């Protein structure tokens, strides 16, 4: 579509061709409805906020490195963990995953674009607006007791701390409105992905022949339609409380703080799966290609994903074991929470089955996938510990939980994302990421991750609650916090290598060609980067691995499926 875009009015009067080209390019990106450009914009936007959220995390870790530190005030610390959590979930993890989904889904199902390109652009700009609005609060919004600026109520913003009585300024409103805005973008993307996957597949691609990535994004989008809505509803109720004297969460007027918790976590827990399922999708595409075998048990993988999507909507109150639910309610949520472990376990075993008997090639995408598998295994097992309500009465809201969910989000989601970057960067740019730098990135970041988050479990077992800006010496927490902070330096170094690799390889990387990994799905059948129309002729498939069939006419998949 780039070749068809109109030059902006008056551009011809500008002196110098270079400037005109620059402006035209900018204009083209601003008005684009192309799924690939929007995908890249999502990814770029998320990488920017990854750095911002990372800086906030670094401030938190420096403050906690030693007891009674005075690096930042409690007010600043509270703002940092609120903004870190909100940023990383809503303005890093979701946009980057939507970016990959946007870029890859139409290519992998053999379509020319998403079902609703304009809605796609609208969704991106709503999300972008949400993030910018959140950060505008540093200029415009007073926090708790009218002090300072930027939200400081925690990323789950429990009532009644968010009520006018405690949060007098506008920082909570910035938080609310930015999540409302990006929430609309999210719903738009979810609708778009569902419509695209259901109605835009190329000839021959039945639901059972879709790449797993499309299946998993379909489940993820379906979940979003159910889970973003309660969050949106709760945000509107909070606005009504704050400005129209409503009493939904106003405990002094008979409102219920627990209701906010239910609304938030009925969004919040499925959200974890919304983030991890697309990462399962990356792993399910990359592990087979690098093991040189088809995915083990495709139908079971699909079924397990649908099961995770369904069951994960009934587990939310395991975030609330300590709020005084009855023993029956607690037991119910223990059962549902542990039950999610079954389909999740199936997935891990099926990836293992995919590797088993293969010829595994250890390029950076596969290395990150292996890191994902090990770390996600541990994250899942600590999740089982937290799922057992009595254990959670001790571990809940302690640093053990912080370590657990960072194991999911960094050890799982971020590692899978790095794998995806190394795997699809050649398709997106036409050049390979540097292999040596990729291996350095992997090892340095792996060491940093384990230094920080392995040792972070221990202060939780020793009674350290989360969200405290400082602590006393003599509780046995200090050494573990120091090690966790040292790990951050390694993580930063790893990220710097990665960013350098992204930039350097864009200009100097080895030219990739259409199919550098000898892969099997449709995105590798077109040029790198793909033309605006994706495919000159729309493809037709007969199996789940159309390029395998093409490369092995003597032994095609469609004979067996």
């Amino acid at each position: 579509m780039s070749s068809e875009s109109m030059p902006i009015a008056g551009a011809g009067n500008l002196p110098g061709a270079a400037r005109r080209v620059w402006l035209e390019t900018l204009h083209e990106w601003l008005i684009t409805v192309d799924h690939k450009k929007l995908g890249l914009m999502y990814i770029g936007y998320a990488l920017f906020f990854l750095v911002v959220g990372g800086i906030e995390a670094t401030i938190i870790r420096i403050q906690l490195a030693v007891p009674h530190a005075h690096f930042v005030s409690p007010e600043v610390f509270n703002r940092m963990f609120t903004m870190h959590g909100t940023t990383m979930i809503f303005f890093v993890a979701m946009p980057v995953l939507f970016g990959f989904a946007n870029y890859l889904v139409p290519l992998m199902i053999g379509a020319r674009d998403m079902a609703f390109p304009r809605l796609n652009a609208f969704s991106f700009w709503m999300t972008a607006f949400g993030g910018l609005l959140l950060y505008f609060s540093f200029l415009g919004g007073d926090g708790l007791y009218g002090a300072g600026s930027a939200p400081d109520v925690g990323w789950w913003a429990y009532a009644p701390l968010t009520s006018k009585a405690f949060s007098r300024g506008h920082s909570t409103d910035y938080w609310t409105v930015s999540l409302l805005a990006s929430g609309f973008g999210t719903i738009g993307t979810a609708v778009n992905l569902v419509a695209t996957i259901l109605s835009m597949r190329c000839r021959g691609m039945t639901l059972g022949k879709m790449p797993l990535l499309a299946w998993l994004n379909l489940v993820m989008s379906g979940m979003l339609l159910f889970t973003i809505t309660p969050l949106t509803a709760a945000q509107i109720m909070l606005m009504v409380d704050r400005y129209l004297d409503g009493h939904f969460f106003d405990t002094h007027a008979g409102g219920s703080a627990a209701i906010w918790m239910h609304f938030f976590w009925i969004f919040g827990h499925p959200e974890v799966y919304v983030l991890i399922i697309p990462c399962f999708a990356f792993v399910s595409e990359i592990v087979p290609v690098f093991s040189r075998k088809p995915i083990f048990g495709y139908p079971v993988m699909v079924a397990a994903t649908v099961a995770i999507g369904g069951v994960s909507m009934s587990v939310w109150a395991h975030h609330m074991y300590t709020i005084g639910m009855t023993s029956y309610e607690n037991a119910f949520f223990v059962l549902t929470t542990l039950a999610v472990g079954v389909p999740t376990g199936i997935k891990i075993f099926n990836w293992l089955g995919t590797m088993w008997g293969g010829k595994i090639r250890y390029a950076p995408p596969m290395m990150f996938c292996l890191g994902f598998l090990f770390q996600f295994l541990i994250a899942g097992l600590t999740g089982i510990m937290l799922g057992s309500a009595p254990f959670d009465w001790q571990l809940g809201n302690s640093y053990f939980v912080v370590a657990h969910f960072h194991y999911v989000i960094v050890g799982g989601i971020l590692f899978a994302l790095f794998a995806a970057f190394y795997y699809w960067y050649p398709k997106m740019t036409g050049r390979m990421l540097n292999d040596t730098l990729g291996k350095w990135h992997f090892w340095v970041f792996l060491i940093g991750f384990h230094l920080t988050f392995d040792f972070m479990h221990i202060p939780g077992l020793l009674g350290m609650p989360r969200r405290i800006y400082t602590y006393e010496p003599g509780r046995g927490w200090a050494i573990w916090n120091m090690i966790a902070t040292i790990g951050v330096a390694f993580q930063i170094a790893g990220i710097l290598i990665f960013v350098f690799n992204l930039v350097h390889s864009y200009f100097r990387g080895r030219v990739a060609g259409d199919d550098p990994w000898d892969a099997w799905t449709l995105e590798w059948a077109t040029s790198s980067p793909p033309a605006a129309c994706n495919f000159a002729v729309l493809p037709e498939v007969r199996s789940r691995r159309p390029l395998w069939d093409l490369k092995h006419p003597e032994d095609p998949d469609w004979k067996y499926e």
Partner: protein
Amino acid sequence: MGRSWGRGGAKAFAVLSAPLCLGQGTSPRPGNIFAPASTPAEMIYGVSVFVLVITGIIFLAVFGLLVYAAVKYRRREGDDAREPAQVYGSDQLELAWTVIPVIIVLVLFIASARVIHQVQDADMPAGTVQVTVIGHQFWWEFRYPKLGIITANELHVPLSGTQNPRPTLLKLLSADTDHSFWVPRLAGKTDLIPNHPNEMWIDPRIEGMFLGQCAQYCGVQHAKMLLRVYVDTPEKFDEWVAAQKRPAAAAPPAGESAAAGRRLFETTACVACHRVAGTRAFGRVGPDLTHLMSRATLASGAAENTPADLRQWIEKPDSIKPGSLMPAMNLSAKELDEVTAYLLTLH
């Protein structure tokens, strides 16, 4: 039954938890959840060890398989470039790794549900000490309705023997935002939520002081909302109760400075928030100061209760606990000395 697991599993766990115990002799771990001193914490400990053993076995099995596959099936030097056998799945295997996890889930569920029931639905014997805990930004109010005692930040409870159990039932309320009562060695945490009363119980079996703190983010000074539980022998507990029941301020304080301090205390805004039984100070917003000197700490554990810290706390609360809701009253140095002298008489 829960407890018998605890004892049986304790040995097994000692091996697993070796890293946690390093340096146990030199550095105390007052919040170690694996050193229970009360029945609810013991029951939790028991099921925790059980869950840890099961998840540990799963970890070793899957980790081993992953390492094996990752090493065994790597592409080797001089590979013949042919694709490996294309295997699409195995119904038997997939059925196996569905059914086995289902069984594990059911076992873990039953183990958890039993402890949930034992802790949450326990009957309290006659003679249970009742305490109402009220969470405030950022301190704890303790009221003993049957004993007529009001105190703050340092909870005193009697030792509960196996022969003669005397548990303490805590009714949990909040005056403002959400808080959570967590003393890891005594019990799991339970939240204090406004307009949503909760209950929990402890029956400590070891005498001594147990540290805990607020475990639900409650605002600026969530970090310094510390908590102490003193477990006293029955005799010491009765002595403490008798001492707390006395209106400390019944007699006018001896000494001119303290008397002036009392006048000052009662004529400035101090009385709007604080209570001293038997005087004109009957505020309820801040901690009860009737027996301030019976407590070891100030500002919910943020400082030691020494005359110097007390004076600094009155002069400039933000220097000890920034963001605390106690305002600085801008007293002169002489006035500070006097108010401090008065508070030092509140035994």
